[in-house]
């Protein structure tokens, strides 16, 4: 039935939406309706309060059936919002869904136009364009492509760990790629977690161990994704495994080699301990590292630098795991979906020189203090100053590199709570007088405000005001030999000088310095600060603008552990929804080449940002792979002979659309 209907003369129905008062308050709906009635091929024009509602959709479905409409125009919101809704409604009434055309009179008109008369005229022009265009629309079908069942998770912090385990428990084969030699991320460095003060290691290390032993998870540590090709459901990913100089499958983590190293003492910065201790060239990142495998740092190993070492480590290894000839290795993966959970970096405190980090030895970053209070940290959990003594007075400065126009404008969300936690731990372990200097206390979260309340009662001091500086300029005898924090106490309206032995800078969370490279690699977007961009901040928080690639955790924006884990779960649900469906429908608005017109000049091939065009040598023409084509139209515009055209965006359709606007204006 639809065959005959669609080949017949166009019969257009136009539906103008009020969107409550979103459109109706700025656009004279009746005038748009009357105008639409005068347009060619228009059989019926109706308006309705909410076209997207069930009764709204029924209006056009009924007209298709009863009036024999074969083209539908809805003048309402952005296609991003409801194009899919109306396409489905059209299809459900027996018409090919591509006989539907949307005119955006909300985002493009009522929300951005001040003058009612002008808004009405612009709406009429857009309706005119849509009607002229829809007449030329052709029936199209979605292309179905199978989805590969495996999933890649990038980043082995708590977000990546949770995502990998949940996917693996659902029976999916998961590859977890981590840049560092061990999984665990920032959370592995913490001693306690707020607000419950449960031991971070007790809740994290069992999960790390499960990742290692899970039959469905392949863990690639000390590895980075270096290439991503393909499209939703069908990605080919290249991962570079950096040379460890230790065979992972042979090493049992006995540390005999570390003992045997020609360096008797650690000499090199231990990054896991935030530089508070030294390690040897051969080392285990930390006792609970997963995998429990040592590695050799080529920058500091004598053998790797000069080839002139006694190689006592290799001799000590009874399993012959050490291999100085190892090189980087590329692993190729085929996956259907990718979850990116690459986390964050902390703010570099030297960027605010007035806080004296790097100048005064007893100014610490919060992450350093996390290591100090950690039972497996460099001091065994003792809060000590650089000279080994115990601080009697400690100042914690909030918002270092957060809420600051000069560095980062955003609130890092976790610092108030972790500062409270550190204040509690320091107070508990040293009995020191602790001062928190804050701008605002931000403790929204389950049990968070209660934790703040508990700290107030514990006798920790709170001073409302951003610290101006940390100085060794002392004025009174009791300040002598101490660091002085200067700050305006805005609650009592005086400038205070607080002498302390230790300063803790609560550094904010930032996107990784190489976020832009990672973004390019995966073809996703990021904000100008470098946070990966979700498809919609409310309704698609873990999806990206690239189908099949999802984001979770702090790479999307600062968040604490509970939110990170929740988001990782959400990303898993989205990935499963894609993978378990088994196929994806690709938009048919792809480009195609008319062979007869193609001269084989290669122009389009070089232009295509998605590498979707290849040259067919035998036929001497370009060919477009519709599965790779994103319908951007670059090749169509570039083709000198008009051989490249695009479904739903043919030259004639676009010209008619322009004509529709211009004729009216």
């Amino acid at each position: 039935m639809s065959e005959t209907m669609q080949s017949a003369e166009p019969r257009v129905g136009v539906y103008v939406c009020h969107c409550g008062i979103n459109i109706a308050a700025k656009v004279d709906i009746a005038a748009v309706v009357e105008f639409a009635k005068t347009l060619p091929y228009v059989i019926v024009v109706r308006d309705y309060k909410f076209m997207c509602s069930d009764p709204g959709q029924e209006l056009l479905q009924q007209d298709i059936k009863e009036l024999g409409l074969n083209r539908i125009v809805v003048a309402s919101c952005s296609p991003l919002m409801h194009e899919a809704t109306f396409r489905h409604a059209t299809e459900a009434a027996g018409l090919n869904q591509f006989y539907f055309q949307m005119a955006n009179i909300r985002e493009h008109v009522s929300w951005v136009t001040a003058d009612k008369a002008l808004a009405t005229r612009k709406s009429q022009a857009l309706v005119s364009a849509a009607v002229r265009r829809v007449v030329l629309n052709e029936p199209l079908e979605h292309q179905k492509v199978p989805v590969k069942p495996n999933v890649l998770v990038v980043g082995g912090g708590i977000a990546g760990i949770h995502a990998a385990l949940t996917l693996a428990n659902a029976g999916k084969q998961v590859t977890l790629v981590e840049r560092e030699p061990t999984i665990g991320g920032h959370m592995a460095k913490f001693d306690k977690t707020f607000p419950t003060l449960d031991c971070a290691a007790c809740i994290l290390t069992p999960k790390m161990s499960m990742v290692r032993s899970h039959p469905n998870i392949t863990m690639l540590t000390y590895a980075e994704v270096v290439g991503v090709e393909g499209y939703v459901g069908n990605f080919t990913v290249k991962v570079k495994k950096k040379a460890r100089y230790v065979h992972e499958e042979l090493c049992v983590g006995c540390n005999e080699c570390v003992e045997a190293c020609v360096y008797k003492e650690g000499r090199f910065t231990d990054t896991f301990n935030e530089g508070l201790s030294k390690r040897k060239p051969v080392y285990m990142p930390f006792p609970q590292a997963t995998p429990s495998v040592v590695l050799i740092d080529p920058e500091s190993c004598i053998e790797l630098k000069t080839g002139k070492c006694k190689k006592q480590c290799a001799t000590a290894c009874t399993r012959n795991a050490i291999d100085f000839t190892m090189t980087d290795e590329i692993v190729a993966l085929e996956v259907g979906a990718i979850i990116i959970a690459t986390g964050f970096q902390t703010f570099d405190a030297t960027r605010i020189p007035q806080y004296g980090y790097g100048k005064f030895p007893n100014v610490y970053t919060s992450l350093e203090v996390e290591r100090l209070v950690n039972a497996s940290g460099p001091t065994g959990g003792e809060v000590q100053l650089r000279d080994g003594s115990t601080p009697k007075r400690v100042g914690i400065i909030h918002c270092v590199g957060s809420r600051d126009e000069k560095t980062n404008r955003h609130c890092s969300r976790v610092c108030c709570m972790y500062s409270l936690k550190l204040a509690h731990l320091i107070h508990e372990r040293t009995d020191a007088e602790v001062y928190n200097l804050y701008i605002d206390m931000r403790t929204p979260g389950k049990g968070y405000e209660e934790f703040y309340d508990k700290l107030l009662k514990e006798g920790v001091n709170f001073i409302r005001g951003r610290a101006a500086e940390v100085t060794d300029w002392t004025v009174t005898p009791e300040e002598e030999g101490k660091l002085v924090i200067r700050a305006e106490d805005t609650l009592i309206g005086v400038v205070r000088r607080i002498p302390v032995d230790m300063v803790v800078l609560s550094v904010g969370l930032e996107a990784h310095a190489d976020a832009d490279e990672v973004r390019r690699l995966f073809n996703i977007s990021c904000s100008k600060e470098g946070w990966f961009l979700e498809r919609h901040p409310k309704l698609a928080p873990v999806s990206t603008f690239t189908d099949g690639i999802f984001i979770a955790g702090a790479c999307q924006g600062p968040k604490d552990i509970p939110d990170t884990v929740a988001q990782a779960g959400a990303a898993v649900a989205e990935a499963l929804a894609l993978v378990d469906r088994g196929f994806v429908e690709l938009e048919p608005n792809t480009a195609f080449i008319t062979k007869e017109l193609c001269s084989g000049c290669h122009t389009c091939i070089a232009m295509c940002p998605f590498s979707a065009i290849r040259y067919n040598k035998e036929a001497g023409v370009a060919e477009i792979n519709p599965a790779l084509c994103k319908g951007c139209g670059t090749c169509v515009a570039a083709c000198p002979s008009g051989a490249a055209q695009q479904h739903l965006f043919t030259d004639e359709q676009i010209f008619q659309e322009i004509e529709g606007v211009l004729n009216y204006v």
Partner: protein
Amino acid sequence: MNHLYYPGCSLKSTGRAYEESLLAVCATLGVGLTELQDWNCCGATSYMAIDEVKAFALAARNLALAEEQGKVGPGTPTVDLVAPCAACYLVLAKAQHCLEENKEVGGKITAALAAAQLQYTGRVVMRHPLDLFTNALGLDAIKAQVTKPLTGLKVACYYGCQIVRPYATFDDQYHPMTMDHLVTALGGTPVDWPLKTRCCGGSLTGTVQEVGLRMSYHLLKEARKRGADVLLTACPLCQFNLECYQDPMKALFPDHEPLPVLYFTQLMGLALGLERARLGLQRLFVPFRQPVGV
């Protein structure tokens, strides 16, 4: 190198030594300074607090004169206007920002200029001598002309509040270093001291003297504590507060010990081998006797 030079009132009165040493140093280094003709008050002092528009209009007149005498206008390169006094430097820069950003006040200023057959088109670049020496001339060029290096001399470099705030055009707002680098180039040793940009007391020394004196006292005390032989300033009011009030300071704070306070251009002159009298050193209340270049 030729620049227009805006002295302001201080350099013709209490800050004479600043002008004398600046001009002597510039002559030696081959930096040409041409005094702006018919200049008027920059608009600093109480004008700014009482009537902002008048203050800016005063400043803008100087900017307009600089364009006229520098023969610049729309479409031409810019002209440098050197203002050694920190207050002049700041007010003139502030007026530029106001003309650029504040249409309402900017419009009033433009109208006021027009009434005097003047106009300002934004072609003046404000420069403090520290900026001029370190960035336009370059420390290497200065170093090459040092004949009496400040070997062993420990110097506290004091920038004061105005030349890097709120606009930090040529140095860091919190930890300015241009003067420190200059002292190093002259062979001296800048001491590490934390009060580089802390207020000297400003006009409080004249109004609520006890408060002003306390602020100056702390600066001098800390400079001494850090081992400084001399404190350098880049502002006539700072120099005045810190140097001329050391007697009343001593009366209020008995532990005060005298410390010479020089304009940085005076010490530059000594390192370049100029006579003390050309640098206005005879005008000091706290004499600077330490020999240099030995």
